[in-house]
C-alpha cells in the first residue's frame, strides 16, 4: 500500500516535471546609449556652454610671460552679467584646486599687480581687474606661488546660495 502511494507521488512528480514549459529565450539586455546633447550653433565670438552660447574670453600671454586673460564675468545659466562684483578663476585641473584670484576685496584679499609670474585681467562693469595667479595651497601664507597651468574656469557667485555657476575658459600656458 505504501509503495503504491509513493509510486503515485513519484509519478505525479515526474509528470509535472515533464509538463513544465521550456525556458523562454532570454532577451539580450537593452543597450542604452546616452549621447551628449548637440551643442547649439553659436555666433562668432561665442561658444556653447551648458546648452547656451556664452562669450569666448580673450586669452593672451604678455611679454613678461604672465598670462593675461580678459574675462567678462557672466552667469553660466543665462549668460547675463553677474549681479555683483565677485568672480573666481579656477584651473580646470581636478587634482588640486588652484585659486587664481578674485575680485572681492576683503574676503580673500585682492591682488592688484600682474607681474612677475602669471596673472590675468578681467573686466566687470567696465572696471578692469588685474589678478595674479596663485596657488590656493599657499593659503593663508600669501598666495605666493604662481602656477603654470593657465587653463581656468570662472566661477561666479550669482545668488545667496553660494558659488553655483561655472564657466570654462581655455587659457594657454606659456
Amino acid at each position: 500500500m505504501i509503495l503504491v502511494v509513493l509510486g503515485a507521488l513519484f509519478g505525479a512528480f515526474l509528470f509535472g516535471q515533464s509538463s513544465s514549459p521550456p525556458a523562454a529565450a532570454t532577451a539580450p539586455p537593452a543597450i542604452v546609449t546616452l549621447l551628449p546633447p548637440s551643442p547649439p550653433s553659436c555666433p562668432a565670438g561665442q561658444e556653447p556652454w551648458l546648452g547656451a552660447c556664452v562669450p569666448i574670453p580673450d586669452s593672451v600671454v604678455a611679454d613678461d610671460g604672465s598670462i593675461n586673460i580678459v574675462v567678462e564675468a557672466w552667469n553660466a545659466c543665462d549668460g547675463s552679467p553677474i549681479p555683483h562684483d565677485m568672480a573666481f578663476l579656477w584651473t580646470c585641473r581636478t587634482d588640486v584646486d588652484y585659486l587664481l584670484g578674485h575680485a572681492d576685496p576683503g574676503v580673500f584679499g585682492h591682488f592688484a599687480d600682474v607681474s612677475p609670474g602669471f596673472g590675468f585681467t578681467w573686466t566687470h562693469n567696465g572696471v578692469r581687474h588685474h589678478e595674479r595667479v596663485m596657488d590656493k595651497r599657499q593659503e593663508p601664507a600669501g598666495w605666493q606661488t604662481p602656477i603654470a597651468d593657465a587653463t581656468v574656469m570662472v566661477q561666479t557667485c550669482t545668488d545667496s546660495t553660494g558659488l553655483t555657476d561655472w564657466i570654462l575658459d581655455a587659457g594657454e600656458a606659456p
Partner: protein
Amino acid sequence: MTLFILGGLTALAFLIGWLYGTYDARKDSADE
C-alpha cells in the same frame, strides 16, 4: 478522507515536479 489526502499529496507532487522542471530548464538555459 484517505483518498482526499492522497489526492492532495499527488497534486502537490505534481506541482513540485512542475516547478522543478521549470527551474531546471532555466538553469540549463543560463548555463549555455
